[in-house]
């Protein structure tokens, strides 16, 4: 039975999307345009330059296009489903999360897993097309590919916790849309979605090494394009794993405090 409810909760997002074909068309269109734009931008930027910051043109283009595809994994129109913590707090429907025999944290995790798997389908499709069209380079070796997959998995795990912390904030500050936007920007910038972190000055790279954001995207993609050598992969993977553990404990604490807050305020 537990499997059943897990399956049900996980498929809420894909099902909602499938029920809204215009939204899916929009996603496809947006993804295609974004890939073309990013691809041409980075080729354009490299027109006058050879290798910079240890990244060749092809590495940079591959990195940038993969970043676009990877950000698809968890970048849906989450508000459309009215199932974000922010909206539940706003509409007062968060009470139902605490009214069911399914713990809110598990429901949230299942929903997120479904969303990420659904996003993965998009990202994989995009990847295959891009690979066939020669937009991205294949991984340097089978070993690099393997390490990349593990690292990406850990990265998504970290990303899940980062997004969870953002959502959990809503339990305390209902009116934090602007703050959320800024944090989203920080996540995108510091994880290397906008530009590979390698381009930034040393102090910036050092700073982000102490933050969880780069573990979500920069590390796996750098492993893919070979900017992080395989010899360094073990260390990077363990840093990612460490973030998973730290954030897991932290978000657990926040869930407990959130529950206490709902219980004391009544949602």
């Amino acid at each position, binding site marked *: 039975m537990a499997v059943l409810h897990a399956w049900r909760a996980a498929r809420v997002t894909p099902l909602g999307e499938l029920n809204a074909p215009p939204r899916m068309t929009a996603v496809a269109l947006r993804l295609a345009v974004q890939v073309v734009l990013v691809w041409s931008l980075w080729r354009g930027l490299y027109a006058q330059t050879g290798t910079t910051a240890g990244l060749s043109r092809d590495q940079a283009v591959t990195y940038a296009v993969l970043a676009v595809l990877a950000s698809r994994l968890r970048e849906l129109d989450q508000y459309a489903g009215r199932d974000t913590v922010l909206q539940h707090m706003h509409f007062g429907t968060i009470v139902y999360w605490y009214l069911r*025999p399914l713990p809110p944290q598990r429901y949230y995790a299942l929903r997120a897993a479904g969303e990420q798997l659904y996003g993965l389908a998009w990202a994989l499709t995009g990847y295959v097309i891009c690979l066939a069209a020669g937009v991205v380079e294949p991984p340097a070796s089978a070993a690099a590919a393997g390490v990349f997959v593990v690292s990406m998995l850990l990265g998504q795990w970290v990303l899940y916790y980062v997004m969870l912390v953002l959502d959990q904030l809503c339990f305390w500050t209902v009116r934090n849309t602007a703050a959320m936007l800024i944090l989203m920007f920080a996540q995108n910038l510091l994880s290397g979605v906008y530009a590979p972190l390698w381009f930034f000055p040393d102090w910036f790279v050092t700073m982000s090494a102490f933050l969880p954001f780069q573990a979500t995207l920069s590390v796996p993609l750098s492993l893919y394009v070979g900017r992080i050598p395989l010899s360094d992969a073990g260390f990077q993977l363990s840093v990612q794993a460490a973030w998973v553990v730290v954030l897991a404990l932290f978000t657990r604490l926040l869930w407990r405090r959130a529950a206490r807050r709902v219980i004391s305020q009544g*949602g």
Partner: protein
Amino acid sequence: MGQLSVAIEVRGLSRTFHTTVRRPGFTGAVRSLVNPERVAKHAVSDITFDVAAGELLALLGPNGAGKSTTIKILTGILTPTSGEARVAGVVPYRERERNARNVGAVFGQRTQLWWDLPVRESFAILRDIYEVPKAEHAARLKEFDDILELSSFWDTRVRHLSLGQRVRSDLAAALLHDPPVVFLDEPTIGMDVVVKEQVREFLRHQVEQRGRTVLLTTHDMTEVERLAERVVLVNHGRLMLDGSLDEIRRKFGSTWQVRATLADPHAEVVPPPGTALLRHAGAQVVFGPAGPAALTVQQALKAVIERFEVTDIALDEADLEDVMRAAYAHAGEI
């Protein structure tokens, strides 16, 4: 379910909230930012009542009286500051998940359905969350559909439902796991007469045929009259009255008037005991209730006819709305 004769037990329940007061003006806003001032608000204080299994109880009171807070405590969402509560033998705020399987709830217009999915998908999710066997689920859905006519719209996405359709779906969603105890916080708010009647019929059916215990809050007095055998009246977080509708009427609804036209306009008029003469102009007289042993409107009618020779008689009885208005006003004075 069922074996317990008392489904809901509330003993000395209290709940205090602490809120920050906003100081007026710009400097006030800045001061509140730096040094917020906290005040305590007693949403519920020392409430005690029982609801028997298979009973429908209406929890009444003006806005902000503490009804929703009480329901939230009984559903396990809120913890009380002091006092005890048991729902189907479970202390809701201590064993939230166990309690969740025993209760269903609808909070007014707040929907628990998934906005982007067809209604039936929401039902399916809930079925799996509450681990309801498939056959049982189908049978129950069929039963609900017969009264609530869900099948006409259950393949529509929730975002496209009308309010009436959504509330009916929410009602079904809350009862799909066969909870012995149901909490409904203003379920029919903003709905049209036809849908309201449908919902009432559904609730009556659930109480009478399925033996569910229902705790209902509403501002719709017609609903109370049609559904509730017993009411609990709260105001300012305190319990004002616990009894039948008749008791409430007797206590607060003594606003009837009996108008009579006497056969003899010059007769001396001495009002029957328990009534008072409110007006006397020629043959026209109006009596109202008076004294601690005030008559009910039926008794007064009988007494007037027995005592006087009347050519015409009429009565005005306060309806439940008036009774409640009097009751709330009375409660407010305490």
